[in-house]
Every structure is written in C-alpha cells, then in structure tokens.
C-alpha cells in the first residue's frame, strides 16, 4: 500500500498521498486500495461528460494527440473538462482564445498558461509547456515538420501529457470535427444567439477507428456543453427560444 502510493506519486506529481488514497478508494468503491484500478483511471484525464461518448477511453488518454479542425468551442470544451478537474492547461499560438467562453464551460482561468505567439520555435515551446501542463492546445502551422511531430510525440510518451492540435496531425489518436451546426434563438432581425446544436464526428486509429458521431448543444443556453437529447428523434423541431 505504501509502495503503491509512492509509485503513483511518481506518475501523478503534485498529488498528495491523501489525495491518491482517496482517488484509489473512489475508483475501486471500497477502501481496499488496488493499484491497477487507479492506474487505469490515472492514465486518462477527465473530459466533460457530454464528450465522453466521443472519446474511446471516455476521456483524454495520457500521452496521446487529439486534433480538432479549428480552435472553436469544441477545442475549448476538450480542455475544459481536464481544467475543471484541476489540471493545468497551456495554449500556444491561439491569440484569439475566448477565455470567457472557456471559463463558461468549466475551465479555470487561474490554471491557464497562454503563449499567444510562440514563433518559429513552437515545438520547443510546446515541449516546455508539456512539462508543466497536463493538456496543451497548439495551433499548428500549415505543415508541421515530421521531425517536430516525432519529437513532441516522444515528449508526450515520456511525460504523459495530452496534446490537442488545431490542424492536421498524421497518426493522431482521435480526430474531432464539427460537421453541421444550427443556431437557435436568432431570427431575421430579432432575438440573439442562444444555443447551438452541432454534430461532432470523431475518427481515429486503433480503438477509435470506428467513427463516432453525436449531437451536442455546443454551447447550451447556459454556456456549457451537453448532449442533445432530441437527437435521433425525427421531426422534433428546435424551437427558437426567446
């Protein structure tokens, strides 16, 4: 038991032994602490519940690369779950990040590190950020050099961080994109944007090879992200709520 904790401490720097024991008890459901259960849970960072169905592990698998098509709300939502659970998040190369929107989904601004312009040495910057942050979002240049990609993948494997890349990344674990969206609450000259119903598709490799798709409220009227319960029920019109 003592060994288990000290071993975990190496894997989860920054958590106190008490936190680890509580985590072990929570995961296993009893006070007989088993390391395996904690380790399997500890290898995944939590994601928002609405996104869990899209991700093969139910969360962000440590050491993996996820891609999103643009740095929109979906990208912020991926980060928000881990941030709300206490992780530090870094964002590189996104000077136009909507901090208020990220905070609305649960991200904690006090645990965000932003490098709006990492410059040509962005792989080095991202590698440095991965030492401190469990999740790093980076907007890639048009063609990221293969060498930089391999180097960062090595950093991820060793350090156990998660990289969310905005753009294309060959061999990414999961690729997420928004295929359709429709806004409600706004008409022709009246109302205001209120909520958006969006279809998100996740593809990838390995266990993620089978494409998963689902309809989300991205965002819901209160700024959060939730599953769209009306999806799949044909003929349910989304009422313009105003």
């Amino acid at each position, binding site marked *: 038991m003592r060994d288990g904790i000290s071993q975990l401490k190496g894997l989860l*720097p*920054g*958590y*106190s032994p008490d*936190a680890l024991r509580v985590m072990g008890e929570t995961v296993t459901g009893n006070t007989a602490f088993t390391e395996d259960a904690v380790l399997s849970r500890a290898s995944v960072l939590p994601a928002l519940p609405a996104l869990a169905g899209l991700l093969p592990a139910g969360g962000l698998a440590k050491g993996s690369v996820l891609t999103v098509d*643009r*740095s*929109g*709300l979906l*990208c*912020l939502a991926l980060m928000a779950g881990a941030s709300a659970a206490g992780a*530090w998040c870094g964002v590189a190369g996104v*000077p*136009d*990040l*909507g*901090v*208020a*929107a990220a*905070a*609305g989904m649960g991200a904690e*601004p*006090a645990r*965000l*590190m*932003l*490098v*709006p*312009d*990492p*410059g040509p*040495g962005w792989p*080095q*910057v991202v590698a*440095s*950020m991965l*030492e*401190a*942050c469990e999740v790093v979002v980076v907007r890639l240049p048009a063609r990221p050099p293969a060498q930089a990609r391999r180097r960062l993948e090595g950093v991820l494997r060793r350090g156990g961080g998660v990289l969310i890349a905005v753009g294309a990344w060959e061999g990414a674990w999961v690729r997420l994109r*928004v295929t*359709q*969206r*429709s*806004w409600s609450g*706004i*008409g*022709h*000259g*009246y*109302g*205001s*944007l*209120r*909520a*958006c119903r*969006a279809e998100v598709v996740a593809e990838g490799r390995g266990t993620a090879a089978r494409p998963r798709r689902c309809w989300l409220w991205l*965002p819901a*009227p*209160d*700024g959060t992200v939730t599953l769209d319960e009306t999806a799949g029920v044909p003929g349910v019109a989304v009422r313009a709520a105003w």
Partner: protein
Amino acid sequence: MRGPAADRPARILAVWCPDWPEEPASRDEARAFGQVVAAVEDFCPVVEVLRPGMCILGARGPARYVGGEDTLAQKIAEAVRARGFGCHTGVADGQFAACLAARAARPRHAALVVPLGGTRQFLAPYPVHALAGAGLAGPLTRLGIRTLGDFAALPARDVASRFGAEGTAAQRVARGQQARRLAVGAPRADLSATVEFDPPADAEPVVFAAKGLAEQMLAALAARGLSCVRVRVEVAGADGQESARLWRHDGLLSALAVAQRVRWQLDGWHPAPAPPTAPAPPAAPEPPATAAAPSAGPGETGAPDGESPGGIASLRLVPDQLVPGEGRQLGLWGDDLVSDQVERAAVRLQAMLGHEAVTHPVLAGGRGPGERAVLVPFGDVRDARLPADRPWPARIPPPDPATVYPVPLPADVIDAVGAPVTVTGRADLSAPPDALTAGSGPWLAITAWAGPWPVTERWWDQPNATRRARFQLVTEDGTAWLAAIERGRWQIEARYD
C-alpha cells in the same frame, strides 16, 4: 526603549504620483519614474520605491534639516511638480498611513501631515479593505467590523487567536504601530547573493538569473528564521557604471517579486534594452504625463541615453530590514508542488520568448467580448481594472464567443441589392444584411441576424471613446459572428464556432 515610543514606527514621508497606474507599470513607465526618484533624492539619499508611482523615505532627518515636516512635504511635492509630474505627499507614522495621507491630500493640497501620534485617529474612518487582504477583510466585514477604527479597538489577544500572525500585524498597523518588530541587531553573516555575468548579459537573462538568485537569498534567510521586507538591488555594468536602489514590498518579498523589481530597475537604467530600437531616442515612448515634462537630466541611476554599455556584469541582492520569518501554510492538496513546477516552466519560457510572451488570463468586466479577459504576464500579480462581477448593462448576452480577435477583422456587409449596410445616428438600419465577407474570406450569405445594438462608451474620454452598433450574424456555413459598425466601417470582433 520601553513604552509606546518603542512601538511607534518611524515618521515616513510618502510621495505619490497619480499619473502612474495602480498596477505594475510597463517598462516605459518604470523608466520615467526614475526622474521622480531623482528629484526626491535631492532631499534624502535613501529613497525606497514601492512601485513605479509611489516611493517613501524616512522624514525625521530631512525634516529637521529643512525646518519641519510640513515644509519638507511641500518642498518635495513642489520639486516633483517642477519636473512636470502630478505629485502629492503625506507624512504619518508608518508607511501605510503615509501612503493614505498622500492620497488624502489629493483634491486640494499638495501635502498632508498627520501629527505625531495622530495616526490611529487618522486611519479610523478608512474601511478595513484598505489595509487587509480579502482573506482578512471578508471575515471582519461579516463580523460587523467595517472600519480600521473598529478593528483597532478589538482586543489584541482575540485578534491574534482568531487571525494569527497576519491579523496581528494588520491590527498593529491600524493602531499606528509598527507591523512587525524589526529583527534585533544587524545580521552578522553576509546574507547577500551575487551573480557575475561573463560575458556581460542583456536585461532579459539578468532578470531570469535574478529569480534564481532571489530564491537563493531567501533560502539563506529562511535557514536563519528570517525574511525581509526590503531588498537592495545593485547592478554593475560592463563599463563600470553602477546602479543601486532600495525596493520595499508591502508583504514579504517573494523570489518572483524580487525579480520583477530587478526588471523595473534595469528598465530604468538601460534606456532601450530591446535590440531593434535605434540608439535610444531620448523621449520616445513615454506615458502621457511625461510628454509635457521638461527634459530632466537622467537620474542618479541613469546611464547616459544612447550609450549601449555592453551589458550587465554583475547583480547583487542585499536583504535589508529583516523580520522574523513566520512561514506560510502550504496547500492541503499539494497545490504548491504543482504551481512550483508551472512557475519554473513559465520562467524558462519567459527567458526564451520575453517576459510578456507568457501570460495567464484574468476575467474582467466589460460590454464587448474583447474586454472580458485581461492577459497578465506570468509572475505579475494584477487584478482586472474593471471587475467582472458588476452588472454591465448592454453587454453582449451569453453564450460567450470561442474566438475573440485581439484586433478586429475588417469586414464588409451588403444588403440584397449589393449596397453596403449602414446604421443611422438613431440606430436605424439602411436595409437587412444579406452577405458578409470577413478579413479576406469569401462572401457568405447571411441566414439569420440580430441588431443593431448601439453602444456609446467613455464619451467623456475622447481618445478612448467608442460609439458603435453591434450585430450578431449567422452565415450559411453555420458560423455565427459578432460584427460591429463604427464610423461606417464594419469589423468582426468575435466568432462563435
């Protein structure tokens, strides 16, 4: 040395220049404050800078020389004003009261002198928030203790048992006493920390090294059970020039705080450390306050403008005014470990990219999306100038956009016949918008829209006034935009995607 006299802090004179903002200043502002310090140093060589915009000095000696505290306060204020800066001075027992006295002098007088022993009475009407941090002021307010007078009247023993060392120090200040008793006797061992740069270095690596050096110095102090409230920063250039300045901090100095003060001092010393700038224009970018200033000679710290003295050869930190270290409570869940790791990474990135390139956001208040967050350089502590938890009538209703352009994108919006859409002074629309192009993007048909929402902000402050009408537009690709028209020109402020 018993009795009240031993408890009473020294008479302090505070010099406050309202032209400098409350928050830690930019490097231009830190540099310009050197002129104020130079003016004050004509009266007393030992000037402690609290932050650009505020400095203090011991009033007793100089007051005896010029013939009274009133005269001294007036003369210093006049001397600074003669250099073209707004200035108020205040004299009281202790630094906190002196700073408040300088502010209280503001509307009508140049100087305000709180008589000897009258400090407690002077402080009594101020709210407890003026003195204590949120951790102390919140509980006190809830207990019904709203002013410093009420706080000072509480039994000291009860304050100590409920609020600990921090509460005791705060109450001593509210009573016009010294916050912490100074550690008796000068330190026997040399507790300073020095680093040499070979070859001489620029400002950026020196600040980077300063943090490590400060940690080393604080660790040496902590090993002796001490911490310091004042530090002397001595910098020597490769050409033999030296700059030394005392920096004081309201709380106890942390390693990051020391590094920030080293940065301020270097900014004031080397006129243009940034390589792209041509040989240092003497009065190039300075805050508005100095624009009208007569060009004062460089202060005592100043290397002559335009000279590029081959970098900095050594940096020395000397702890000054030691107080007993009271330690601090570590976080329960090991938060400190994490933030330590994050801090190290941030400092490394700052050494690579520059101090202001690594930021963390602070939520702020405002009507437009661009005003909702302020980016603060990592390591600086700064509150948002406009608090987020106030009502902001006419703000854009939620949800918040995921993409907020730091500089709005130019855009064009046309109606069904292809004419640009305009908004009249009475917020009437020329025609419903039909298509949008943002930046250099393609034309997109508009499928839904709302607006115009007119906003007139800061009309009393012409250079910063805005008068615009905002719209939300949804285009055929499912993207929603926050657009605004100002002076007939369309721009995109944010994107909902």
